[in-house]
């Protein structure tokens, strides 16, 4: 029986994480791919067409999970930033590094699929709506995080800078949402709002839920895999990497 504090301290160990995450990644990838295949086929062929939007509402099944995950990943980065500023855990910094490109890709996907959805339904791919604008700003925030990490030398300094920026951005993205919403209602009354799905019929809800779960699993698996890569890259010279990779002279048992 392993105590809780042992688990906590072990989870901060690079070697333990590197070896323990393999099984997690495998299962998360398998689950994610299975769920996504099921959810996408369900959404494409078996879900009914929407009464108002017709067939094009099927894009929802890929757009909503991407938009949801893009915000969740930023929230995770900001939370990791707080944890890093308080405890200076190395794995948390590696987690921030791994999550930023994934979140950036998801935000791009949300923007692209939203624009593709907008053309047949709204007649235009882009509206300066509160949600669209804040998603676009989120995209720039992700790029800023990646660029700042790339520009700064030294892991400690980069980690601190990125944590601060992630926190400031997290506060900012909330304010942006309110301010743009307000601005839009001030000047373009009756513009299209992407309201959340109110009381969605189960026929839409189930494939959507399957896809959201699939996105979660795949993104979590990819984040863990990216963390492993970053860990090996940073610790390339250390003893634990040597023993894990089985190179060099074997130590006497």
């Amino acid at each position, binding site marked *: 029986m392993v105590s809780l504090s042992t688990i906590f301290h072990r989870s901060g160990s690079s070697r333990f994480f590197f070896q323990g995450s393999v099984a997690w990644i495998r299962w998360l990838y398998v689950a994610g791919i299975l769920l996504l295949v099921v959810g996408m086929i369900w959404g494409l062929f078996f879900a009914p067409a929407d009464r108002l939007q017709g067939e094009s509402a099927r894009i929802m099944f890929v757009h909503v999970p991407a938009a949801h995950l893009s915000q969740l990943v930023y929230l995770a980065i900001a939370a990791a930033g707080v944890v890093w500023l308080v405890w200076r855990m190395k794995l948390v910094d590696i987690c921030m590094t791994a999550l930023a490109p994934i979140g950036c890709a998801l935000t791009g996907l949300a923007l692209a699929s939203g624009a593709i959805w907008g053309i047949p339904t709204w007649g235009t791919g882009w509206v300066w709506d509160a949600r669209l604008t804040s998603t676009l700003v989120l995209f720039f925030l992700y790029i800023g995080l990646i660029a700042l990490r790339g520009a700064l030398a030294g892991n400690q300094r980069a980690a601190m800078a990125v944590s601060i920026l992630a926190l400031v951005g997290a506060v900012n993205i909330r304010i942006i949402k309110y301010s743009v919403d307000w601005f839009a209602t001030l000047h373009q009354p009756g513009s299209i709002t992407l309201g959340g799905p109110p009381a969605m019929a189960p026929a839409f809800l189930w494939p959507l839920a399957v896809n959201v779960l699939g996105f979660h699993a795949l993104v979590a698996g990819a984040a863990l895999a990216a963390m492993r890569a970053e860990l090996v*890259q940073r610790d*390339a010279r250390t003893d634990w990497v040597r023993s894990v990779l089985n190179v060099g002279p074997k130590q006497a048992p």
Partner: protein
Amino acid sequence: MRDPSFYIWSAYAICVLVLACIALRPLASLRTAKRRARKLQNQLVDHA
């Protein structure tokens, strides 16, 4: 309303493409990182 099937297929195709990139990129970079680490460790051993 225009025929939406083109938009639906392109949205799904982009989604699959981006997800494939998200899933495969870490695996590729892990492979590269491992290879580099092996090389570095071998150099360290040779040096010692």
